[in-house]
């Protein structure tokens, strides 16, 4: 005992700093992201025939070729996501507003891609907080989109001030319904939400396919498509035509902040988190876990539904049968990365949005397939979920307090 105290006294500034750094979960997150990029880089090198050729001539040229390929891949990824800094600088100096807009287009486009991620990420994070694994965001996005679209072209003669919120609300309600069903089934019958939400995804998929192919089809189109939504239902776009950056982005940020407020500053949010951490204890403390679970799942679905609504009202303006978005599935990784914190989701959604939007340019310029993004994501999740790996690689000190990791109740967990 005495010994330990002595050694504590001797700690100097650097060791305290090092310990704090090791204990911070932010360190782990940043190192995870960096490591994810390193692993992706290694993969790019391993799968480039040029590298093997260069190593055939000499070791040095092999190293330099590897470096060139990785640098080219990641630099075009960032160029695609953020825009060319040289162009941006030149545009700002010239002061021409059209040029400035053009230079910022890639970044604004990334924000457009970020918007649905924000909604779905918050939705999945909210579910996790309540101990619910909502894989159904994909289906909730789809029904939200079609419902908002329906409201967008059906109600005529409304002012945008009424029409847009109305359409968003209809989308949220549809998504909420899609979340409510698995939540309800879970509390009433114990059906596990992982399976029911997957089933709901398929039901949503076929339902939308059917709706677009007949009842909601625009009769003037050759291929099945819905009609265009009315102008009054368009989410406001801040810039002229080619730039699609729209109001939905700020709505999504507001939703993230609102959910953070609910989760951490209200009694109801406390109940959600408490039920997620320990349903039994919450029950004995007198909370109504049935109500909390159903409400959390429905709210999660509603927020995911808003993702679909903001896509159709802000970006596509109509729905075709090319449905798969992938936003719902990516958002699982995204929420985990944010440690299910709604404000953290803002950052990780931005990261995912930048990656997704930049990856298209990367594939064109560097010839690296966009799917490198999925591999990056999977490694980042791996490192975040198993911090012990990161601690071993970077020789960080073992954390004294046990980390609270994200946990989901498994298939047979008792109600």
């Amino acid at each position: 005992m005495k010994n330990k105290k002595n050694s504590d006294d001797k700690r100097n500034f650097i060791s305290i700093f090092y310990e704090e750094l090791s204990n911070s979960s932010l360190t782990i997150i940043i190192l995870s992201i960096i490591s994810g990029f390193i692993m992706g880089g290694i993969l790019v090198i391993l799968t480039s025939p040029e590298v093997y050729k260069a190593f055939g001539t000499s070791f040095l040229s092999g190293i330099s070729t590897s470096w060139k390929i990785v640098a080219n891949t990641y630099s075009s990824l960032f160029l695609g996501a953020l825009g060319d800094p040289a162009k941006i600088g030149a545009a700002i100096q010239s002061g021409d507003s059209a040029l400035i807009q053009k230079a910022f287009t890639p970044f604004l486009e990334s924000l457009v891609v970020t918007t649905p991620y924000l909604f779905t990420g918050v939705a999945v994070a909210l579910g996790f907080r309540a101990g619910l694994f909502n894989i159904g965001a994909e289906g909730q996005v789809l029904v939200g989109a079609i419902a908002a679209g329906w409201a967008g072209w059906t109600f005529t003669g409304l002012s945008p001030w009424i029409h847009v919120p109305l359409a968003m609300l209809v989308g949220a309600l549809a998504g909420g319904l899609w979340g409510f069903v698995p939540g309800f089934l879970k509390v009433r019958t114990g059906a596990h939400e992982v399976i029911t939400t997957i089933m709901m995804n398929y039901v949503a998929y076929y339902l939308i396919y059917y709706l677009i192919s007949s009842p909601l089809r625009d009769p003037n189109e050759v291929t099945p498509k819905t009609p265009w939504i009315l102008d009054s239902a368009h989410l406001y776009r801040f810039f002229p035509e080619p730039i699609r950056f729209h109001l939905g982005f700020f709505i999504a940020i507001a939703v993230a902040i609102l959910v953070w407020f609910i989760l951490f500053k209200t009694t109801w949010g406390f109940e959600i988190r408490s039920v997620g951490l320990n349903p039994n204890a919450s029950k004995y403390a007198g909370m109504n876990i049935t109500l909390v679970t159903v409400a959390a799942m429905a709210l999660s679905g509603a927020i995911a539904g808003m993702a679909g609504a903001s896509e159709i009202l802000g970006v596509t303006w109509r729905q075709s049968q090319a449905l798969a978005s992938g936003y719902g599935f990516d958002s699982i990784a995204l929420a985990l990365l944010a440690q299910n914190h709604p404000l953290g989701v803002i950052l990780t959604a931005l990261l995912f949005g930048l990656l997704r939007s930049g990856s298209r340019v990367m594939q064109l310029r560097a010839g690296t397939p966009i799917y490198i993004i999925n591999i990056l994501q999977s490694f980042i999740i791996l490192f975040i979920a198993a911090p012990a790996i990161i601690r071993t690689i970077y020789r960080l000190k073992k954390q004294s307090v046990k980390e609270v990791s994200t946990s989901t109740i498994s298939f047979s967990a008792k109600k």
Partner: protein
Amino acid sequence: METPMQNEKIKIILNYLSNYRQHIPGVFFILVALFIKLVLTKSIEPEALTTFSTNINHTAIQIPNWVFNTRFALDLIAGLCAGLGLYQIIRGFKKGISSIIGAIGGLVVLGFLVWGASGTSISFTGMLAVMVIRSVPITIGALAGILSERAGIVNIAIEGMMIAGAFAGAVIGSILGLWAGILAAILIGALLGLVHAVLSIKYKVDQIISGTMINIFSTGLTSYLFIKFLQDSQNQWLNESGFFKPYAIPLLSKIPVIGPIFFDHNLFIYAMYFLVILLSIALFKTKWGLRHRSVGEHPKAADTLGVNVFRTRYLACVLSGMVAGFGGAYFSLGSVGRFEQTMTAGRGFIALAAMIFGNWNPLGALQAGMLFGFAESLTTKLSLLQFPIPAEVLLMLPYIITMVVLAGVVGRSRGPAADGIPYEKESL
């Protein structure tokens, strides 16, 4: 203080509650019967005929096609549904209720087929043969899930293991031949299973997160490699594995109707039968199976009795990965003979549903796999028939049925008790 009166009251209430679980499905069955009788039958002429052709070209013994009166057949189906519903209300099916719900689903679909094919003919045998083929990845995936979950490890990475297996099978199969392809698929599955095991057993990562990570990784890596290498026209030889040809089992395949449906397929279908039987015996009739299951139900007790919990779980994950990898090879080596991006199309997740539907039991998984397979074979048939009701509505049916079964209107399906819970040895 409870008086006997209160006790009686509680008993009555409990009785009512348990009956309510029993009555709902019964009422539902009868509603289905009414729907068939009142909605479907009404639109059919009394003399209309439906033909189910039962012969596929090369069957030796030809039997006559089944031609029957559409209305009569529909009445029969409605009668069956009503009968099942009445029995459910009066006596209750208790344990077998999942199968009954499956049967009702089957009857409804059959009813729609009879109704839709009224006045024309439909290849009944062909459709069921397709059902068996399409059930393969779902059943094998479900078996993979059973293997790991019976030992207490949730494996939602089946989808990822399957796509990896499909890829390895196609590429190695193109270079070294079909059998090497299968071997590669099994190995890559085992590797991913090992990753899942290390993450969830050693690092105690939440098993669902670990599984999600493997899914994202495999889907990403196979798509990445596909675009990078296999799309190039110069590299086409890397993705031309070909596939296992069907082999008609002598004698068995000659049985009319049954033969072409079950015994005229390729390796993967027979492997599925074999695996179902093997696992049923191994899990429930051998010492190994008892130990395996005890680890999934009560690891502490198993540990106390000298079963090595960690080793059992590692083995379970690797075996599960091997089976899933093999199932994935079906997509490339068993069906189209090449790899395509995202060719598993969510079958790994359906397999999970089939596993739960089949109550973590290999035979149940086979039944559930057949149900989903039937739904898929409908897809192709319905588009040919110019069906009067939208195909998509019918296609939703298996998913809705799964939810109804899961929802345990019928009594809860119970997985292994320690499923998904990491095991920690208590230190003394």
